């Protein structure tokens, strides 16, 4: 495929993506419906490319290489994993350049303007929970990063596809057969990976801020009944700070922001296997009281 140029008019950041891979083009169009502009060049924040490797390599073990302008932060992957590489590259680009929000590694979902943050390490079931809530009437603000406005408890959406791994791929496909799923990237460092475009309602409100009413640290445990532990402010702060990745760079303003968030929100740690129970807890005990 000849080199193509796409503008992704996301909010609050925009990207230009150059690619010569059909796989990337197909997935982009499917994941970001109505947000892709192939007209010549409005101004975008970041220039990315996702292309074939060079040299003879492209003929016998085709690779996909990600660049943010001239910079290649990751090693090349197999071409089949190219779309996942692009999504991760977009995350990297934002995390390493954007300092005007305090960014936490966290999913963000909301009912109207009441947002709950779900900060969690990989393997905690965060993305499965995110997908479930997003398709059960919640609004997705982000699956990966919470953009918290400095010195406030306001979170700005950064609506992007949800990154599903391994078993959760089949689960999500069985629950939401109408969902828009990307092609599979097999055997990445996170296992098999598929991206799932959020429902239309989330896209429609992609520029609507929300205020953080709770922070929930989720841990999936197969077969376990729902257990809920309320955290005190200190516990909440410490756990949350571990997930805030530009907290250090933002210094005083980062610290004040996290303090503000923790002071105005309840923090919980939950262990669960049944998502319906979790949703019930979130809606009845948190949202209705907030």
């Amino acid at each position, binding site marked *: 495929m000849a080199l193509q140029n796409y503008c992704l008019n996301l909010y609050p950041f925009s990207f230009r993506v150059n690619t010569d891979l059909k796989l990337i083009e197909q997935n982009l169009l499917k994941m970001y419906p109505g947000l892709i502009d192939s007209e010549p060049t409005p*101004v*975008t924040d970041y220039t990315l490319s996702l292309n074939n490797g060079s*040299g003879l*390599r492209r003929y016998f073990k085709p690779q996909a290489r990600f660049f943010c*302008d001239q910079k290649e932060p990751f090693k090349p992957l197999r071409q089949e994993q190219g779309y996942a590489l692009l999504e991760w590259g977009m995350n990297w680009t934002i995390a390493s350049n954007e300092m005007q929000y305090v960014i936490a590694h966290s999913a963000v979902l909301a009912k109207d303007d009441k947002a709950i943050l779900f900060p969690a390490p990989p393997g905690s079931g965060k993305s499965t929970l995110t997908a479930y809530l997003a398709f059960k009437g919640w609004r997705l603000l982000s699956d990966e990063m919470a953009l918290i406005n400095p010195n406030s408890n306001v979170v700005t959406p950064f609506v992007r596809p949800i990154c599903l791994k391994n078993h959760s791929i089949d689960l999500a496909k069985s629950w939401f057969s109408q969902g828009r799923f990307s092609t599979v990237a097999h055997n990445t460092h996170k296992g098999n990976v598929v991206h799932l475009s959020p429902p239309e309602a989330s896209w429609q409100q992609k520029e609507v801020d929300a205020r953080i009413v709770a922070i929930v640290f989720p841990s999936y445990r197969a077969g376990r009944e729902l257990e809920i532990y309320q955290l005190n402010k200190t516990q909440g702060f410490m756990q949350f700070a571990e997930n805030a990745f530009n907290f250090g760079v933002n210094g005083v303003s980062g610290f004040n922001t996290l303090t503000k968030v923790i002071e105005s929100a309840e923090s919980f740690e939950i262990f669960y296997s049944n998502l319906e129970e979790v949703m019930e807890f979130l809606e009845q005990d948190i949202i209705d009281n907030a």
Partner: protein
Amino acid sequence: MPDISARDVIQLFLHPESAASIDAERWQQIILVLRYQQLLARYAKRIRKAGVFEQVHKYAQHHLINAEIIADKQYQQVHYEASLLQQQIGGIGSHLIFLKGAGYSLSGLSVGVGRTYSDIDILVDKTAISDIEKTMSLNGWLPEEMDEYDQKYYRQWAHEIPPMKHATRGTLIDIHHNIIPVVSTRAPDINLLFEHTVITKDGYQILDKPAMTLHSLIHLFYNEEFKYGYRDLLDLHLLMSDNTEEYWQQLLDLAESTGFERELFYACRYTNRLTSTAIPEHVVNLLNQKNSGPILPIVDFIFTQLLIPSHPTVRSPSYSLAAFMGFLRGHHLKMPLPVLIYHSVNKAWRLIIEYFLGNTFFDKEKTH
């Protein structure tokens, strides 16, 4: 995309008040160049100082502020790292001098404002190196992994030991015992630089301004790689602007005693030509007498291309040729011919392998 030239990017630095009249499309292009050259923060601070930051297009303000935040954090971090190093190894050997970027930050001079860098460089007494290495590893600094060939290169020929990285903070540190490779035979008597140090108001040892300038210009003109040539030229522009007569005399003397007059000549020539740096007439005359020669047009060709803002979108068609010539020149300066051939054959072999088998072939952790 609009047509931005390297010259436009230079003019913006020299006339920061013009930032207010640049539209978003031109900014998009300028920001690509500046980010690639690691100069976004330096420009941001410059524009702020000119008092026009609020009038700059919102698109550009957004990216400039991001860069400023990162640079401010680094400025704070380098003070912290310097105080730890001072405690841990300050008592070993005769000197602990902060060089280059870290030295600029600690100096409080304009050259340190918005300047970013990827590692901290220090200069120490050679006889203290092994004690310093041991003490640092006890304090959580680990040597970077490298293959045997590179290890040998460092230990046998270089002017520094393999870089060390802090296990938890990730800070990289380069420990030098001279300012250029010993194999070049041009490494100066380091005591000449040890005599040109000052203590900052926070208590850190750095080179004084003439010696700092000398090191900066040696680093630029006695080198083979020019990816950040423009940034380094701006360092020199800032260091060489607004100085006393005494500064110039000391700089001339130091260049003579260390044997780097030609490099000083180039520094004056190209800062003046490319960034209109004001060099005193008697300095220019003196250096001209000693240094003009038949190869000067070739050197001009190389440096007038490698020391201006560089990015694929603003490079001239002859850039690659200039870069290649600059590379050969730099290597030739640094190594006697037999060593150069040995080193080049080794590196060329790797490039060939990487061309055919992918550029991760030599990485220890391979991709699929």
